Each structure stands twice: as structure tokens, then as C-alpha cells.
């Protein structure tokens, strides 16, 4: 079993227009183990993506206070590639497009980066595993021969993120709004991929604005985030409450003084 802990995390970004630092996360606490699925819900602009980027180690996000620990060891000093090799994975909201590098070659490089030089994955084994995962995600072979995310539709990009997740088999996967822009069929396929990963050696932090995704990937724990903090945690029923009352309702119940940019 592995454990991921976020302790009193404060994160700032540099506002490019003003050239000033702006604090986004104001003390986030979160503990999760493999075998568990956690969901973070919250209104737009509340810092959900910032949390996922800070855990993964995006250099644009600056940790000003607090810590992130993997199995008791701080990972804040590790660059992003080392965090990835230590077991973290982030399915991104806006994956980069890289022309000239095929999807399949990229995935093989990612897998081999985790293996010794004299123990690279045999091509046949890799292809078999790839075919199996492609089938789960209803994806065709030509998707993997194409250049990485180049010219992919929004839905194809999301599927491709999940395909990478299934190929790499991380300990913890953060899924940042994997449901945005997906129609119901695509949502089902993506959920099928994540559910296939469920097990004692896998944990996932699912970031979403909407409760809908959680009908397909049922979480063990739901957290509500507002204004850079986790303000409430509970079981799956919390997501339903949010759906019924809206974020404004939860905010008012808790007596939090924040302005929501979009009230659902």
C-alpha cells in the first residue's frame, strides 16, 4: 500500500499581467491511500487544477508553505519526471501536442523510463498490452500511430490520457476534469478505463466540477474545495448533496464568505 499526503499546502502563481505573486491554495490537507478513489469538487477558479499541478510538480506553481509526501517522504524537491517515476500520474486538462513524436513511441519511452537500460520492455509484450488497453477504451490502432495529441479532438485527447494511465500503471493518478467536453458515451468509456485500474495498488484523485462523472466512477471519499481550501469531506452522498443544493448552498450551510464565479 502507498500513501499520498498533502499537508497545509499553500501555492502561489505569478500573475503574468501584474507580475505579482497570487496565493491560490491557502492550506490544503488531504490524505489518501492506494485502493481508494477520492473526488475533489468545487466551483471554477477555486484552485482544483492548481492542486493537481502542484502535486505533480509543474514549475509554474510555487509551493510557499506546507508539504506533499509520498509514503512519508517529501517530494517537493523532486522534478516532475522523478515524481512520475515515483508513482504519480496527472491526466491533464490540456495535454500538450507534440508533432513528430508518435503516440506509441512516446508511451514506450514512458514505460522504459521506469525500467533499467538492460531491461526495456520487449516489443511484443508492449504491443499486446497496448492492444488490450485500446480495446477497453474503444480506440483504434491508428490513434497510436498518430503524432502525440496533434490534431486530436477534445474527446480523443481525454481518451489518450486514460490510455497512457493504463499503460503506465501509476500508484496514484490525478484526473483533472477528465469529464469536461465529453459526451455520455465517451464518459462511459473513460470511466471504464479508470474502473479497470481500480485495485489495492491504485489510488485516484478525481477532480471534477460536475457530479455526473461520479455516477460512473464511484468515489470512496468526496471533498469540497472552495477558495483554496478543502471545506468539507464526506462519502459519495456529499456529491449528491452538491448536485441538489449547488455550491452556493454548501457555502451558505458552512457560512463561508466567498464569491462564486459560477453558481450551479
Amino acid at each position, binding site marked *: 500500500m502507498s500513501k499520498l499526503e498533502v499537508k497545509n499546502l499553500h501555492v502561489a502563481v505569478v500573475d503574468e499581467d501584474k507580475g505579482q505573486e497570487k496565493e491560490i491554495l491557502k492550506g490544503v490537507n488531504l490524505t489518501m491511500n492506494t485502493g481508494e478513489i477520492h473526488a475533489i469538487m468545487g466551483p471554477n477558479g477555486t484552485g482544483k487544477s492548481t492542486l493537481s499541478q502542484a502535486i*505533480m*510538480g*509543474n*514549475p509554474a506553481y510555487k509551493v510557499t508553505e506546507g508539504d506533499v509526501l509520498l509514503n512519508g517522504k517529501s517530494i517537493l524537491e523532486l*522534478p*516532475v*519526471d522523478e515524481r*512520475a*517515476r515515483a508513482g504519480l*500520474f*496527472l491526466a*491533464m486538462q490540456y*495535454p*500538450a501536442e*507534440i*508533432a*513528430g*513524436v508518435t503516440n506509441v513511441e*512516446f508511451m514506450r*519511452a*514512458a514505460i522504459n*523510463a*521506469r525500467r533499467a537500460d538492460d531491461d526495456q520492455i520487449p516489443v511484443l509484450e508492449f504491443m499486446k498490452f497496448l492492444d488490450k488497453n485500446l480495446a477497453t477504451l474503444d480506440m483504434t490502432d491508428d490513434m497510436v500511430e498518430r*503524432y*502525440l495529441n496533434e490534431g486530436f479532438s477534445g474527446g480523443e485527447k481525454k481518451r489518450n490520457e486514460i490510455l*497512457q494511465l493504463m499503460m*503506465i500503471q501509476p500508484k496514484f493518478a490525478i484526473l483533472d476534469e477528465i469529464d469536461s467536453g465529453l459526451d455520455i458515451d465517451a464518459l462511459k468509456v473513460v470511466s471504464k478505463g479508470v474502473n479497470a485500474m481500480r485495485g489495492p495498488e491504485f489510488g485516484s484523485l478525481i477532480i471534477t466540477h460536475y457530479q455526473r462523472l461520479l455516477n460512473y466512477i464511484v468515489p470512496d471519499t468526496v471533498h469540497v474545495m472552495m477558495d483554496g481550501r478543502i471545506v468539507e469531506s464526506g462519502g459519495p452522498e456529499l456529491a449528491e448533496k452538491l448536485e441538489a443544493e449547488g455550491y452556493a448552498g454548501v457555502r451558505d450551510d458552512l457560512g463561508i464568505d466567498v464569491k462564486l464565479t459560477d453558481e450551479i
Partner: protein
Amino acid sequence: METQAEIDFQSAVSAFSAARNEPDWLQKLRLTMLAKYPELALPKFDKIQYQRWPLTDAHEPAVQASDATALAALDLDYADAKNVLVTFGETVVTTRLDPELAAQGVIFTDIFTAVRDYPELVEKYFMTTAIKPDANRLTAFHAAFLNGGAFLYVPKNVVVKEPIQGYYIQDSTRKQDFIQHVLVVADTNSQVTYAENYATVGTEANLANVVVEVIAADDAHVHFSAVDQFSPATTGYLSRQGNLANDAQLDWAVGMMNDGNVVVDFNTDLVGKGAHAEVKVVAVTTGKQLQGIDTRVTNYGQHTIGHILQHGVILETSSLIFNGVGHIVKGARGSDSQQESRVLMLSTHARGDANPILLIDENDVTAGHAASVGRVDQEQMYYLMSRGIDKKRAERLVIRGFLGNVLTEIPAKRVRDQLTATIERKLENGQKSE
């Protein structure tokens, strides 16, 4: 060793020409240019400073054999190539041409055999059409001291399906000039794919002077790719010249992977109506070298199309200059000139320049340019690294993507794979000091 002033070059060049059984016209041309070259000006290229390079310090020409076993160092892979010529220094190592093509009149042979066996045909095209011998000091020097190369001729209406490949290897196991001429003539309505490779064996400091002429007659279609990888100790003048008649098409894809200083004179003249050239260049520059690449397309004929695409990467303390010159002359109505030059800098000590020059002397045309000098995209790096790929490898992947639009243009898979491997090698070397 004798200094240049002590050598009787006139006798030496005459003797060299006689020993090669060259026809009179070539011997005369050599001697005329030998007398003339010191007076001619060096060619000028914007922003490329190479005037002090030792590009005309000739050694005494003499017919010398090279030991082909030394080629093992290069790991050349041409065993199953149907049409191939391999030379090492002045020595022809392998020459193969599909007998069916030979029966159709296709000629592919080393330049000395060509001038002996097809003197009129070579004389008609050799430095007459695409470039003149007295164009500048370096072309005249070239004509005087020429000591290797190839001739490819594709007759009217002949379509060559399999690629024709040339490997021209410089012998720097000793002091010896490498003065190569490749003459490609695609006659009316013919089609051919030609790929060439230059490389060096040995560590001596030598000069390389390469002139390649591609002449595409009416309706001919030539696909030309090249990978140049001269050694760190080689100083080079690399000239490629294209001349296109009516409705001819020439697709160039060139990889500049040299490790030493080179000045590249890359010129295409769209002479005939409707001629079309696509010029693609990739370059990787490392160490302390300078690669100065001047790529020019001139639209003379009406409705001609000239497109230049150059992508380059600079590492360590090296310099890369891309000039893109698009020139539409008066009267070339309905023509199109487009260019894009992009340079990625991986080191703060590198120097890069992407320099677009548009010279438009006709109104009824379309023209455009884009140029940039930038750094590796940080979002792409972050994405690759977030999957566990380390920084250097991620950088190489991003760069390969950046250079990919030229790589995919290279038709022969063998050449393409080899260029990919060369890029990988050069990048790995360049990254060591970072």
C-alpha cells in the same frame, strides 16, 4: 611539407587530369579556373562570416587510393540497395545500378568514369546551366581541383522507382582535399529519387568543397535528399544548385549534421514556366562550430512556386544562421514565394539567426515569410516529463518533433532512419556539456 607557393599547381593539375584520362575540355577548364580563382571574389552571404576559413588552401593534387576497410568505422548500410555508388576519397568502393535501368539509358557512375565514357553528355551540363565555374572563387577553385563525385542521368520519359543512393566519404586519415562534384540531370518528363550522404573517416583537418548540380528538364520530377555529416576537423563549402525548366519539380530535403564549420550555398532557379521547388532543411549545430546556411530560391518563370522550410537546433556554444532568400524577378507573374525559418536554442551560449530576405520585383505575385528564434516549449517538456521521461530525453523528443517535418519528407526509409539516428547522436553529444 611544401607550402602552397612552392607547388607548381599548373603541372600538378595537368598531370592529375592526364592520369585520369580526362577529355580536353575538362583539362582546359581546370587550367583556366586554376589561373582565375585567386582573382575572383568569395561569394557573399548575409550575416555569415567565413572569409578567413581555409577553403582554398589546396594540397598538391595526385591520384591516391584510399583503403576501403576504414569505412567500417561508419557502419554504412547499403548492402541491399539496388542502385548505389560508394566512394572513399578518390576510390570507388561500390557501384551498382539495376540492369533494367541501365537498359533504359539511365547512367549512374562516378564522375571520372562519366567524363571518359560520356564526355559530350557531361560537357553539356557540367557547370554550364545550374552554376558557372567562374561564379566565384570557390566554384572556380572547385573546377580546378575537382577530385571526385558522381553523374546521374535519367533519359526522357524514364521513371526510376527505386531510390538512387550515393555515399561520398571523405578520407581524412591523411591530408587530402575533398573536392566533389555531383551532377544530376533529369531529362524531359523523367522522374527520379536520389539520396546522398557525406561523411568523414579520420581526424586530419581538411577542406571539403562540394558542388551538386540538379538540372530538371521540362516536366521532370526530382526528389533529392541529402545528409551531410563532415567531421569537426573539416571546413566545408557545400553548394547545391538547382535549375528547373517548364513545369519541372524539384523537392529538396537536406540534413545539415556536420560537426565542423560549413558555409552552405543552397540555390534553386525556377527558370521555366510553372516550375516548382520545395526546399526543406534541418540542421543541428553543436560544439563550437558554425553552420551558415544560405537558402535561396529565385522565381524567373511565370507561375513558378518556391517554398523554403528550414528548422534548426543549436546546442553548446555553436552558431547556426539560416538565411532564407526568396527572389521574384520582374515578369514572373503569378508566382509564389514562401518561406519559414525556425531556430531552437538549447543553450544560452549558442547563437542563432533566422533571417528572411524577400526580394520582390513583380506585383502580381504571392509571397510570405515567417522566422523565429526561440527556446524549447516548456509545456511540451512538462508534459513529457510528467510521464517519467527525463529532461534530456524529453528535450530530444521535442526537438525530433520540431525537425520532423523535414524527416518525413525523406522517401528512403534507410536514409530517414539514418538521419534520425544522426540527429540523436548529435543531440546526445551536444547535451553532454549542459
